[in-house]
């Protein structure tokens, strides 16, 4: 059922919400990304899997306009990130590295603030914050300041903050970082709901084939700044095949 929905919304079904073509980026002369091409369509979860330092976060930073590519193109909703209008920017929810968790504000205040930044009116921002507090099981900490939250709860807060304006494009860098198994299940459920029920385009990264990568519709493997292939999510022995690809690309014996 989910597979059919993905196909309908896939390459034949419409324009990619996220698309990069031949994107390259160098830091101090060192290539970090080399001619990376990738597309994410509405209704699908696209997992980007690679070891630490493979370039996953850099690629996501390009999509969010935090960095500019040295070559190739990076488009969000068909436009360069810096050219998006205010309303188009509101349609992109993301969590990269640091969660939106101001230490002096409570969980509820942080989420309300995230809603205002995403363009929601005050009352709507508060309602969205309360709904997300429930979805991410943060009820017990709604009145707790950011500085007093555990790493796991900060991560839940950051994930919730990314979703306040019901974005149709979601970019999450290692979303299960610091989460306990219950938190991982919440993220997994959330991803399936946002992509497969609400039609959002989801790009999610992971350094291993965790529970989140396993719910993806497509898996791209990134190694040393290059996409070296894809993995079929429903294939057997996914972990072994992932490492086979990495080792083969790196020229390392198993």
């Amino acid at each position, binding site marked *: 059922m989910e597979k059919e929905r993905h196909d309908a919304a896939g390459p034949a079904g419409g324009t990619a919400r996220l698309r990069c073509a031949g994107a390259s980026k160098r*830091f101090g002369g060192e290539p970090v990304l080399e001619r990376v091409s990738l597309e994410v369509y509405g209704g699908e979860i696209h997992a980007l899997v690679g070891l630490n330092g493979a370039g996953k976060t850099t690629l996501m930073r390009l999509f*969010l306009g*935090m960095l500019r590519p040295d070559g190739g193109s990076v488009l969000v909703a068909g436009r360069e990130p810096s050219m998006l209008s*205010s309303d188009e*920017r509101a349609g992109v929810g993301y969590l990269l590295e*640091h969660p939106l968790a*101001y230490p002096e504000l409570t969980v509820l205040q942080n989420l309300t603030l995230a809603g*205002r930044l995403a*363009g929601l009116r005050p009352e709507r921002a508060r309602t969205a914050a309360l709904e997300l507090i429930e979805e991410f099981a943060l009820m017990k900490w709604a009145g707790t300041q950011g500085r007093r939250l555990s790493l796991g709860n900060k991560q839940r807060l950051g994930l919730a903050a990314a979703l306040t304006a019901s974005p149709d494009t979601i970019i999450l860098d290692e979303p299960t970082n610091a989460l306990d198994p219950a938190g991982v299940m919440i993220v997994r459920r959330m991803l399936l709901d946002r992509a497969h029920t609400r039609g959002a385009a989801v790009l999610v990264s992971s350094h291993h084939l965790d529970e989140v990568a396993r719910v993806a519709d497509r898996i791209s493997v990134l190694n040393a700044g290059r996409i070296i292939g894809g993995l079929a999510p429903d294939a057997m022995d996914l972990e072994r095949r992932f490492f086979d690809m990495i080792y083969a690309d790196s020229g390392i014996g198993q």
Partner: protein
Amino acid sequence: MTGRGQLGAALAVEWLKFRRARPVMFTSVFLVLGVPVMTVASVLSLEGANPLLAVKAEGVIGAGGWEGFFVGAGTISAVGGLLGFGVVTGWVFGREFTDGTVGSLFLAAVSRTATAAAKLLLILAWALAVAVALTFTLVAAGLLSGTAGGPGDPVIPVLTVKFLLITATTALLALPCAWAATLGRGYLAAIGAVIAIVVLAQLAAMVGLGGWFPFAAPGLWASQRGAGTDATTAVQVLLSLPLGALAAGLTLRSWHRLVLS
């Protein structure tokens, strides 16, 4: 969202953070209460047991009275204002980098330029409120401690306005700290900039550049007895306006073009 809507939302968001920020609270107390306390202490040291302190205080305050009291307060506020407003300005901008929250301001419906503009507007409004509150507490301290003179002295209104302007001017001169925090990606860079500004202001006064170095102008104006409103001084103090505007403009441009490498 319209540009106006973005600025409105940015002001609401920034105000939520600003009013709970410890550096803002500490600096407000430091300036509103600290400057009057230091001024009264300076006057009291004129007749204190320590002759070294008495000589030093006499060099600033002179014979005392409301004139001396305001010269002392203005001199303290010219440095204290730069330090206090500089630290808060640098913190408000730099904390987004230090806390890692700046990433959340990319691709938000509220543009980064609107966020930076809201920060600048809040800082200026807060600084003006602090300057007004400080002026009130200073006059009250002078009256209640009896260190300045009686309430009927006709020079009080003029000196009060002059003191208010000196303190408010330092807020404009502290705006480069916003740019320093942005370029340095954190508030430590801004604190370094505040220290550099204060040291350079002292050096400028010593080498004879005087009030033509804008950061030194409020302090030198404060040291002049009475209103001290000759044309040169007025121009020197007014240089803080283009300097503050330039710092604000550069900060807005940097936030608009921001990349996180």
